[in-house]
């Protein structure tokens, strides 16, 4: 039987969520290779867009690539290079961030960053009674971060909820802790906090606990980190909800890509993962105790 090679290119594990992506990608690779000896899955991580482009060149240099599963660092920068890979006849699966030219991809497993922001915003609008003061922590200046913030702002439109402040905390719990301390010092009254990633939420929660401030009703995150899901399941009043953005989407994508080499017809098109509200009721579905994220 002919050997098939699937390359998986993802960002390096620089923080919790990308760590989760790498974890799930490697898990999928192991499982598929164990189940189907004729399929080889190579997972490669890259710390920057430029490095990811390099990795694509390296992976295709040998010329025996059958499929590529890629979670692009950013859309604009990776479009051209992925196009070159596609031109060689490789099956292309794009995960999470779409390319600027959707014609290139065969399969698109999409997360919805805008929905992560807007779902959270809608929750706040509903539960704060349409008005209140919130502070926001954002990550590293990239497309994901930008989309989430954009979604959040759109979600608040029409309500009287005011964003007091938005600052970068680089998706880092420590920086989020510091930033939250400073927010607390700066604003005597805060109704809710939104950290656009769960890593940061951990820091935020510690800072709130330390301050002893009681007026803060909600501290919300996003991404579906298991520690936060646990809180939701436990009915934590401050973090009653969560928006998933499961790093396991990479696993889904790899499986769907591999399926065609296993006798099944290739799946093409778009698989959209929405970002539903996780509440106490459905939290169980989103809880993966074995995942590092």
């Amino acid at each position, binding site marked *: 039987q002919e050997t098939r090679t699937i390359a998986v290119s993802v960002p390096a*594990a*620089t*923080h*919790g969520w*990308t*760590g*989760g992506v*790498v*974890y799930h990608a490697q898990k999928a690779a192991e499982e598929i290779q164990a189940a189907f000896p004729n399929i080889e899955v190579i997972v490669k991580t890259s710390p920057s867009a430029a490095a990811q482009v390099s990795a694509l060149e390296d992976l295709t240099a040998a010329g025996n690539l059958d499929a590529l599963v890629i979670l692009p660092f950013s859309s604009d920068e990776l479009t051209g290079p992925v196009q070159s890979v596609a031109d060689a006849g490789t099956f292309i699966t794009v995960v999470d961030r779409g390319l600027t030219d959707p014609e290139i991809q065969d399969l698109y497993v999409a997360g919805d960053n805008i929905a992560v922001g807007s779902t959270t915003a809608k929750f706040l609008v509903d539960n704060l009674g349409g008005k209140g003061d919130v502070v926001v922590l*954002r990550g590293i*200046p990239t497309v994901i971060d930008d989309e989430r913030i954009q979604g959040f702002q759109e979600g608040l439109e029409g309500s009287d909820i005011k964003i007091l*402040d*938005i*600052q*970068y905390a*680089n*998706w*880092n*719990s*420590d920086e989020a*802790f*510091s*930033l939250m*301390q*400073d*927010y607390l*010092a*700066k604003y005597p009254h805060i109704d809710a906090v939104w950290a656009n990633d769960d*890593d940061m939420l*951990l*820091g935020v929660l*510690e800072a709130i606990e*330390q*301050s002893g401030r009681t007026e803060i009703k909600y501290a919300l995150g996003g991404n579906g980190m298991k*520690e936060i899901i646990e809180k939701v399941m436990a009915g934590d009043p401050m973090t009653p909800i969560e928006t998933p953005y499961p790093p396991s989407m990479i696993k889904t994508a790899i499986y769907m890509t591999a399926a065609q080499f296993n006798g099944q017809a290739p799946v093409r098109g778009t698989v959209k993962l929405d970002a539903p509200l996780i509440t106490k009721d459905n939290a169980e579905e989103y809880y993966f105790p074995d*995942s*590092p*994220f």
Partner: protein
Amino acid sequence: MSDIAATPSREPLLQRINWVDIGPFIALAILVMVGVLINPDFLAPTNITNVVTRSAFIAIIAVGATFVISSGGLDLSVGSMTAFVTGIMIMFMNAMVPSMGGNAIIAGMALVLCVGALCGLFNGLIVTVGKIEPFIVTLGTMGIFRALITFMSDGGNIPLDRSLREPFRPVYYGTFVGIPIPILVSIAVALVGAFILYKTKFGRRCAAVGANEEVARFSGISVGRIRTIAFVIQGICVAIAAICYVPRLGAATPTTGQLWELQVITAVVIGGTALRGGKGRIWGTVAGAVILEMIANLMVLSNFISEYLVAAVQGVIIIIAMLVQRFSKQP
């Protein structure tokens, strides 16, 4: 001639003040004044306490860096070393809980000090035995430590066992006679550091090695040993910082300590220690660490800076702080 020999007590006070030594404190004072103008809440006790407490990690590590830098070295690995030793400590404590209970904390602390010292030793030996630029060696070990913590945590995080959180918590959040523990720890580290650097033979040798390696060699000082010990001290300081760090968020992640190396070196340099080696200034270093944290705090407290430009303003302030120092030196 010899009658002209010094009677230092008669020199005017102003001339006896060592301007290099107090430069960072002048910069700090100016920063505080600016802070109050920007936002009166700046001086609120909670805010000041928070800021100073937060600066403890950088301050503690930077005390170690003062040794390394004044002995003519440089350590870029401190940030990822923090993450690595934190991970080791947490994993060890978690493993020990079943058998030791709360004592796991003590055991973990002892262990992390050893691990930190070993990491420093590793850096130091490669630098001195391999005779390679410290910049390159520690850039290499920076990658190594960072990769190890990522590997240990599978890219996720390594949380501290729940049962240990409460007993460990006071190490960051607790106070003693009203002063937060991390502040006390960093004062203690700085005191010990200052004692070692200024009042022991080792400290003297350290400065001599940094000032002129040849003179040190000709004076019977084992240059390699001194440099290595400086790296070990750096490792121990990293371990101490890690001990204070864990109770704060109760976990180690691949992002722990990211870019701390730059902050640490900046604190040391703002504090008046020259990067080319020679004289180290422990108290200046501590002031430098507080300055950095305070700048970050002011960025948040001020209302007129776009979030996009925060880094730019910080950069400008750091440069200005250095200028303030430079010119306060020439009264």
